[in-house]
C-alpha cells in the first residue's frame, strides 16, 4: 500500500515540476516555423492544456498501462523502456558477477591474514577503488585498451547471440569483447565494497567459538573457509548486493554514456537533454517500481537466509 502511495506522490511531483522546465515545443519544431504551426504542434501533444488536466490524462493512461508517447520517437514510452532494459540488465548482472568473483576471495584473504603485506595492499587499493571516479576510469580504460593497445572495441553492444531463448551479448565472442570493458568499469566500485564487507565479516566470524572448535577438530583450513566461514559471511553480503543492484542500474547511466551502450541510461540522458517529458516520467516510475520490488525481494531473501528474522516475525 505504502509503495502505491510512494509511486503516486513521485509521479505527481515529477509531473508537475517537469512542466516548469523549458518548453519541449521549442525542441520539436523548426525555429523558423510560423506561429500557427507551433500552435498546432502544441495542440497535437496536448501541451496547450493546464497542468492538472495534463496530469489527469496521464494518470488515466498510466492506470491502463500507457505512460504516453515519446515526443521525439513518437512511440509509447513504456515500450521504448522495455526495449532498452535488457541491455542495462545484462550490463548490471555481469558487473555484479565480476564484483563478487573478484571481491570475495580478496576480502576473505585480507580478513584471514589481517597483518600480511598482501592484505595491506588489498585494503589500500580498496580505498582507492572507492575514491576513484568511475567515469574517469572508464575513459582511461578506453585510452589504454582501445586507443593504445587496440584490443577492445570502444562502443556499442556488438553482435547479439541467442541461447535458450535468451538474447545477450554474452553468447558471441564479439559481444563479449564489447561487454567486458563496460562491465568491469561498472563493477569496480562494487569490488571495493565487497572486499570491505567480506573482510569485516571474516575478521568477525573467525574469532567465534565454532571456528575455534572446527580448528580444534583438525579440519583443513580450506574446509573451514568453505563450510564454516563462507555461509556465515554471505548473508550480509548478499543483502547489501541485492540493494546495490538497483544502484548498479542507476550508475549504468554513466557507464552507458561512456561506452555508448544502448541501454536505459543512454535513453534517459538523451530524454533529459531533449526535454522528452514522457520518457523521463516513465523512466522514473519504472525505476521507482524496480526499487520497491528489489527492497521487497531483499526482505524475503533475508528471511529465507537467516532463520532468526523468521522467528522474530512469529513472535508478533
Amino acid at each position, binding site marked *: 500500500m505504502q509503495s502505491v502511495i*510512494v509511486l503516486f506522490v513521485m509521479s505527481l511531483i*515529477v509531473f508537475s*515540476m*517537469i512542466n*516548469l*522546465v*523549458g518548453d519541449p515545443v521549442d525542441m520539436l519544431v523548426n525555429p523558423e516555423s510560423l506561429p500557427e504551426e507551433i500552435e498546432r504542434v502544441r495542440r497535437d501533444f496536448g501541451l496547450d492544456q493546464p497542468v492538472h488536466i495534463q496530469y489527469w490524462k496521464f494518470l488515466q493512461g498510466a492506470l491502463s498501462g500507457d505512460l504516453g508517447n515519446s515526443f521525439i520517437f513518437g512511440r509509447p514510452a513504456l515500450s521504448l523502456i522495455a526495449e532498452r532494459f535488457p541491455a542495462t540488465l545484462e550490463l548490471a548482472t555481469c558487473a555484479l558477477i565480476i564484483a563478487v568473483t573478484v571481491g570475495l576471495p580478496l576480502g576473505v584473504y585480507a580478513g584471514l591474514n589481517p597483518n600480511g603485506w598482501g592484505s595491506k595492499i588489498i585494503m589500500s587499493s580498496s*580505498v*582507492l577503488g*572507492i*575514491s*576513484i*571516479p*568511475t*567515469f*574517469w576510469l572508464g*575513459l*582511461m580504460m*578506453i*585510452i589504454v585498451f*582501445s*586507443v593504445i593497445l587496440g584490443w577492445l572495441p*570502444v562502443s556499442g553492444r556488438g553482435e547479439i547471440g541467442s541461447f535458450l531463448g535468451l538474447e545477450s551479448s554474452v553468447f558471441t565472442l564479439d559481444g563479449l569483447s564489447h561487454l567486458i570493458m563496460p562491465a568491469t568499469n561498472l563493477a569496480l566500485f562494487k569490488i571495493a565494497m565487497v572486499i570491505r564487507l567480506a573482510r569485516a565479516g571474516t575478521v568477525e566470524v573467525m574469532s567465534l567459538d565454532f571456528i575455534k572448535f572446527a580448528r580444534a577438530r583438525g579440519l583443513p583450513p580450506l574446509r573451514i573457509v568453505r563450510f564454516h566461514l563462507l555461509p556465515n559471511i554471505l548473508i550480509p553480503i548478499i543483502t547489501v548486493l541485492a*540493494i546495490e543492484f*538497483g*544502484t548498479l542500474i*542507476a*550508475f549504468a*547511466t*554513466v557507464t552507458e*554514456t*561512456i561506452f555508448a551502450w544502448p541501454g536505459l541510461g543512454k535513453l*534517459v*540522458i538523451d530524454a*533529459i*537533454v531533449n526535454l522528452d517529458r514522457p520518457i*523521463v516520467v516513465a523512466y*522514473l516510475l519504472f*525505476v*521507482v517500481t524496480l*526499487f520497491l520490488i528489489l*527492497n521487497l525481494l531483499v526482505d524475503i531473501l533475508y528471511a529465507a537466509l537467516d532463520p532468526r528474522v523468521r522467528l522474530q516475525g512469529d513472535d508478533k
Partner: protein
Amino acid sequence: MTDHQVRTEEKYSKILLANIYKPATLISILLLIFIVSCAIFAPLIAPTNPYDLSVVSIMDSRLAPGEQMFNGTVAWLGTDGAGRDVLSAIIYGLRTSLVVAISSALIALTVGLVVGLIAAYFGGQFDAFLMRIVDIQLSFPAILVALVLLALLGKGIDKVIIALAIVQWAIYARTVRAAAIVERRKEYIEAATCLGLSNLRIIWRHLLPNSISPLIVLATLQTAHSISIEATLSFLGVGVPITQPSLGSLISNGFDFILSGAYWITFFPGVMLLATVAAINIFGDQLRGILNPRYTK
C-alpha cells in the same frame, strides 16, 4: 569547563598526536592543505587565466604536455581543444568543485541537523513520519536522485548545489537522530525540562552540542562523496555550466579527444579529482579512528 571535558580533550589530543605521525594521516592532511590552498589562491598560482578570452588562443589548441604555448608560457600539462592551459583549468576547476561540494554539504548538514534534532526531541508520530521520508529517500541511489532533480531544476551552479543538498540531508538527519535519541533519555535533558527551559533552548543548548560529534566524520566523507557526484553529473552534461567548469566538466570536455590520442585533457583533471577525493576519504577514515577508537580496534 568541567573536569570531565578536560580529561576528554586530553584524551583526544593524545590520540591525535599518536595518529598524526602515521604516514597515511600525514600525507592526506598535507595533500588536503595543498589542494585547498590551490583552490583558494587559484588566480595567483595558475600560470594563465583559462577564461580570459584575450589570452586564450586557438593556435595553442591540443599541445602535448611540456610544449611551449604561443605566448611563451610552457603548458606543463598540455592544452585542451580551445587552447586553454590544462594546468590552469584544473586549478580553477578545483575551485568550482570544492565550492559546490562544501556549500551543498553545509546546507545539507544544517537541514539534516534541524530535522534530526526535532524528530528525536519530539518523537512519536512526528518522528515516525520524518524518518519514513528519510528511509524512502535513502533507498534510492544518490546519483539517480540528483540526476532527476537536475532534470527538474534545470542548469546552473546554484541548482547543482540545491540538488546535492537535497540528496544528502537525509543521511545527516538519520545520523543526528540516532545520536540525539540516546541523549534525549539522559537525565540532564530531564533536569533541563524540570527547570522549565523552553524546548528551543533545550534543543539548541543541550541536545545539539551533545549529538553533533558523529556528524564530523560523516560530513568529511560526504564532502568527498558530493565531489564525486558533482563530477559525474557534470560529466553527463547536467551539472555546472560550461562557463564555470568543474573537474568533472573538464574531463567531459576531453572525452571528445581521447580517440585522437590527446589523453592529457582527460587524464590530469581526473588525477586531481582522484587525489582530492582519496585525500578526504583517508582523512575521514583516520578521523573516525581518532574520535571513536573502538571502530579501528
